[in-house]
């Protein structure tokens, strides 16, 4: 059904120029669309291209709108909807801070060991963990250790197999 809300991961290859992120964000905010996560970084220094990964939720019609509006932006070269064109690998990274007495820290460390999470900073009163995985993995860890502070990078994603989101030649 068209009315059903669905979460999509959309990637765009864009010119790495000032203002391009404002255009993308403006497209969402100007039309009341929702952004769950957004990441952007240069991926091709020679051609000056950045990749934007956006996670958004909407009806089929809204998602189609978002994709065609994105594709219409002048600095946007390619748009890919990994949720539709998948399968894809999706990863997120978070830094998670836990503070408290010794017992709390030990408990957190035990959970971290069990879930393959790295400890990247420690003081007698605090731990900072680096956790990577799917967004669900991150949620699970965060729920278990009850952190005092979390910093998440947002989803990065890439299609599985040999399909490539590259610039049009």
């Amino acid at each position, binding site marked *: 059904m*068209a009315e059903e809300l669905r979460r999509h991961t959309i990637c765009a290859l864009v*010119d790495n120029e000032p*203002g391009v992120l404002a255009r993308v964000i*403006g497209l969402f905010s100007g039309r009341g669309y929702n952004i769950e996560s957004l990441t952007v970084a240069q991926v091709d220094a020679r051609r000056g291209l950045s990749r934007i990964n956006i996670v958004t939720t909407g009806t089929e019609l809204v998602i189609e*709108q978002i994709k*065609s*509006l994105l*594709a219409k*932006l*002048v600095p946007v070269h390619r748009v890919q909807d990994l949720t539709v064109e998948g399968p894809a690998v999706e990863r997120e990274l978070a830094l998670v801070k836990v503070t408290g007495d010794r017992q709390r820290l030990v408990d957190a460390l035990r959970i971290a060991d069990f879930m393959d999470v790295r400890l990247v900073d420690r003081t007698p009163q605090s731990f900072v963990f680096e956790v990577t995985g799917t967004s669900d993995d991150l949620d699970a860890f965060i729920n278990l250790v009850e952190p005092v502070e979390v910093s998440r990078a947002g989803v990065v994603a890439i299609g599985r197999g040999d399909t490539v989101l590259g610039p049009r030649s």
Partner: protein
Amino acid sequence: MSAVTHPAPLADVQPLTGSQVVVAALKDQGVEVIFGYPGGAVLPLYDALFQQTDIRHILVRHEQAAVHAAEGYARSTGRVGVVLVTSGPGATNTVTGLTDALMDSVPIVCLTGQVPTHMIGNDAFQEADTVGITRPCTKHNYLVKDPADLARVLHEAFHVARSGRPGPVVVDLPKNILMGKAPYLAKAAFAPRSYNPAREPDPRRVEEAVELIARAERPIFYVGGGVINAGTEACVRLTELVRATGHPITLTLMGLGAYPASDPQFIGMLGMHGTYEANMAMYDCDVMVCIGARFDDRVTGRLDGFSPRSRKIHVDIDPSSINKNIKVDVPIVGDAERTLTAMLAAWQRQSNRIDRARTAGWWRQIDEWRKKDSLRFRQNGNGIKPQYAIQRLHALTRERDVYVTTDVGQHQMWAAQHFPFDKPLRWLTSGGLGTMGYGFPAALGVQIAHPEATVLCISGDASWVMNMQEMSTAMQYRLPVKTFILNNSYMGMVRQWQDFFHGNRHAESYMDSLPDFVKLAEAFGAVGLRATKPDEVDGVIEAALATRKPVIADIVVDRAENVYPMIPGGAAHNEIKLSPEEDDGPVKGEEGGMVLV
């Protein structure tokens, strides 16, 4: 494209200034006229313009008017309109015009001055974040920070403005970029980097569409301004296709002129103030062929009551216009001319299988609806009916090469209903944004592009004063635009809505202290005329047409007249209201519809 010879080699020998590069790029793009207003940040560019004669500059009296004039120029020629303004207030004054051009898909390149790059962000004198402010109201915008980019950006701006769904593009030019040296890149050497909208339709979709059209029993063509934007050839193809099928066609406000209004297959404009037959046919059709229109709320009425039983075909150059408001069955992304050409060819291949009798019942039904004569008005009292004035204006200008612009309000709707067009590019009105103050400056732009044509601006007493300073521009350049103010001493359309939906309480819609428009015209050195009785109307029109000067004709009309038919906000097409004499009850807003504008 054929090779053009450029004066460019000069650039290789001795570098140009940024301003000279701008002028060279404009010439290379074939620009003949710019509408603008100077100021500190763009003085170097004005200096470069001063020292050449190929490009004419038209000095407007307000930057909003520069954009509307450029829109008038663009929409009456199919070319890109060019605007030049200074930084800060010059740039912010263009925002309404840019938004208007964005909504109505008008190709505009607007050059704005900017403070020098090293001062950007310092709150310098007359600094505004122009790219930030205009980002949502342009198709694209640029801030040129490197002289090496200047020529490429200008060519790309023209490319973006005119390709795909056309629209306004802003190029923000810091003063040091205009004054420093910059290399030139000829248009012929420019290739767009990323923006290249597809123009060819998918042939399978075209077949599918034609198959549907051929099998339809109650078909309708619903056509908008996109076909006019695709060029006069597209309008010719449209006319051929519609005639070949024998099916009825309705046009949007923006599409008027894309198909000859005098043709019997034309069943009038559709939408909020469209004809009864057009709206009923939209409701009852089984196949809808939408070409270059965008299912906007003034056309669809209540979405869940919109044409509930039809299969819908939608042709548009802009993929984001498809499936935006209405889900369609056959989406076709493509240029209207190419798509219509392909559809026509497909139709001809099938034509031996096509049975015209299939739609005979449908035409009988349409003729029944037509008998309602929904645009009829009654001459009661001694006053001038605004519809009558417009009909006379049409009758007395039919032999002329005529262009019509309007402002926004009741007069706009009456002009759309009572001034028929057989050709495209002749009708210019602010559809999407509904900008009061559009009509007069747009008319000046039309007159610049067509010096010998008769250019009429049909306006209202409230709208016209919103850009009346432009009468100075008209005088300076001897632009004999004929303004007909349908003067009802009200913001008539506001008054109409207050009568219908707000208990007749006329909050702030009475136009107190209006100027004497005849004296106002004379103060500018133009001609002022007035008609207060129906038998004076022809004389005033003839006198206006006889002079080579700009004219304001103050047509004092019946204040109480309302625009009918009307689909109230939030109602469906089949809930259309005819005039009170014809209809069962007063127009009332539906609960959900009251919140709509």
